[in-house]
C-alpha cells in the first residue's frame, strides 16, 4: 500500500518552507528584472498579485478564512511569473496564476491535495491557449543592463546566452540551499539533470544529422527554464513521489521527456511540460516502488 504524499502541516513549518523557496528564487528574479527591464517586473507583479488575489477571494468566499498566511500563493505566483516571457501581454500571467490557484489547487481541496503542480498547470493552460502570443522571439536588449538576449526559452530567465547562464547559476545557488536544508529531495534534480544531460548529449545531434554524441549540452543545461523546473517545480513535495527509487525514476522521466520535447518536439517550454507529464505518473511510481519494497 503506497503512502499518501505528505500533507504539509499547517503553521510555521509550511510558511517557512514556502518563504524559503520564494527567497531562493529572489536572486534569479532580480537578475531577470534587471536584464529584461520593466516589462519583466510587470509580469512578475501581475502573476504574484493575481495569485494572491484569487487565493484570498476563494478562501474568504468558500472557507471564510484567509489562507495567504501559508505562503503557497506567493510561491505559485513567483513560479508562474518566472516561467513566462517578459513580452507576454499582462492578462496572460493573470490568467495563468488564476488557473493555477483556482483550478489546479483550490478545486481539488487546497494546499496538499493537488496532484499537479499549480504553477505548471497555469503555465500549460496559457501555453496552449495563446501560443502565438507566447511564441519565442529574439529580443533586443531592453533591460537596465543592456545585455543582448540569447534565444529565449519562453521564460523570464532567458535561454542560452549570458542571460540564461547567469539565471541558471543563480537558480542553482538557490536550489543548493533548498537541497542542503532538505526542503527539496536531491534525487529528483540529480536524476533530472543526469538523464537530460545524457540524452541531449548522446542524441541531441541526431535531428540535425550530426550523429551520436554531438548534442549541444551547454545550451540545454544553461536555459533558465530547465533549472527552474528541475530545482523548484519537480521537487514540489505535494506532487512528487516519496521513496528513493520512485524519486529517481521521476527525475529520470522528467529528463528524458524534456529531451524528447525539446529536441524532437521543438518546444521551448519542454522542461515544464515534462514535469507536468511526470506528475501524472506519481501514484503509479509510488505503487511500483512500494511493490519492490523500496522506501
Amino acid at each position: 500500500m503506497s503512502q499518501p504524499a505528505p500533507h504539509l502541516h499547517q503553521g510555521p513549518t509550511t510558511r517557512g518552507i514556502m518563504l524559503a523557496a520564494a527567497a531562493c528564487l529572489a536572486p534569479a528574479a532580480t537578475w531577470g528584472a534587471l536584464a529584461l527591464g520593466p516589462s519583466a517586473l510587470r509580469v512578475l507583479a501581475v502573476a504574484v498579485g493575481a495569485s494572491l488575489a484569487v487565493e484570498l477571494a476563494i478562501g474568504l468566499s468558500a472557507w471564510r478564512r484567509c489562507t495567504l498566511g501559508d505562503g503557497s500563493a506567493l510561491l505559485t505566483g513567483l513560479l508562474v511569473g518566472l516561467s513566462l516571457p517578459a513580452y507576454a501581454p499582462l492578462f496572460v500571467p493573470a490568467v495563468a496564476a488564476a488557473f493555477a490557484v483556482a483550478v489546479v489547487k483550490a478545486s481539488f481541496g487546497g494546499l496538499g491535495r493537488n496532484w499537479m503542480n499549480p504553477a505548471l498547470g497555469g503555465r500549460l493552460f496559457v501555453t496552449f491557449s495563446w501560443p502565438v502570443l507566447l511564441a519565442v522571439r529574439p529580443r533586443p536588449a531592453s533591460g537596465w543592463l543592456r545585455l543582448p538576449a540569447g534565444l529565449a526559452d519562453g521564460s523570464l530567465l532567458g535561454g542560452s546566452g549570458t542571460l540564461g547562464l547567469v539565471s541558471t547559476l543563480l537558480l542553482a545557488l538557490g536550489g543548493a540551499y533548498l537541497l542542503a536544508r532538505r526542503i527539496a529531495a536531491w534525487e529528483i534534480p540529480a536524476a533530472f539533470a543526469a538523464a537530460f544531460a545524457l540524452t541531449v548529449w548522446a542524441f541531441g545531434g541526431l535531428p540535425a544529422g550530426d550523429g551520436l554524441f554531438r548534442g549541444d549540452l551547454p545550451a540545454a543545461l544553461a536555459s533558465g527554464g530547465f533549472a527552474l523546473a528541475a530545482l523548484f517545480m519537480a521537487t514540489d513535495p505535494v506532487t512528487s513521489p516519496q521513496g528513493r527509487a520512485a524519486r529517481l525514476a521521476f527525475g529520470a522521466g522528467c529528463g528524458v521527456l524534456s529531451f524528447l520535447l525539446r529536441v524532437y518536439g521543438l518546444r521551448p517550454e519542454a522542461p515544464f511540460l515534462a514535469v507536468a507529464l511526470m506528475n501524472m505518473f506519481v501514484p503509479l511510481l509510488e505503487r511500483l516502488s512500494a511493490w519492490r519494497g523500496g522506501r
Partner: protein
Amino acid sequence: MKTADFRGVLWRDNPLLVYLVGLCPALAVSDRLVNALLLGAVMLFALLGTGIAAVGLERFAPPRLRLPLRLLLASALVTAAQRFLWAFAPTFTAPLGVYLPLLSVNCLLLGSAGAGSFSDGLLEAAGRGAAFAVGLSLLALVREGLGAGTITLFPVGSFGGVLNLRGLPPARVLAAAPGALFVLGYLSALARRRGRGRS
C-alpha cells in the same frame, strides 16, 4: 410532467451534467453552439422513439432481447436522422463527424424502465431530451464564447450565423478537448449545487 419535476430534471437529475450520459459525443461537438443544438435535437428525436418503444418492449418482449432490440431501434432512428440531415443540411452535419452515429449507444443509458403508459414514457423522454439539450447548449456556449470568441448559430435570412464577440483573445484550450472536460466538470459541480439547493 409538472414544472417542479422538470426543474428537477434540469438540474438535480440532468442526464448530461449529473449522470454524464452521452458524454463522448457531447464533449466532442460542444465546440460550436450550432453543433450542440443539432446534436441535442437528434438526441431528443431518438429518445422519443426509444422511449415509446421501451414501454412496448416491456410488455411484449422477452427480457434478454430488450437491450439488443433497443440498440437496433436506436441505430435505425439515428441512421434515419443522419440521412435526413445529410440530404437537407450537409454543411451542418459534416462537423458532427463520427459523434452523431455514436448517439445510438447512449440513448440506451437514458432508458426508462418502461413501466407505465405510453404517454408517461413519452413525457419522460421529452423531459430528459430537453434537459440534455439545455445542458449541452450551455456547455457549448461557454466553450465557444470563451474559447473561440464567437457564437455560431443557424444562418437565418441575411444573418450569416456567426456572432463575433469582442474582448480578450480567445483561450484556445477551452475550444479543444481539455476545455470540454474542464467546463463540463464545473458545470456538473454547478448542477449539483443547484440540485442540492432545491431538493
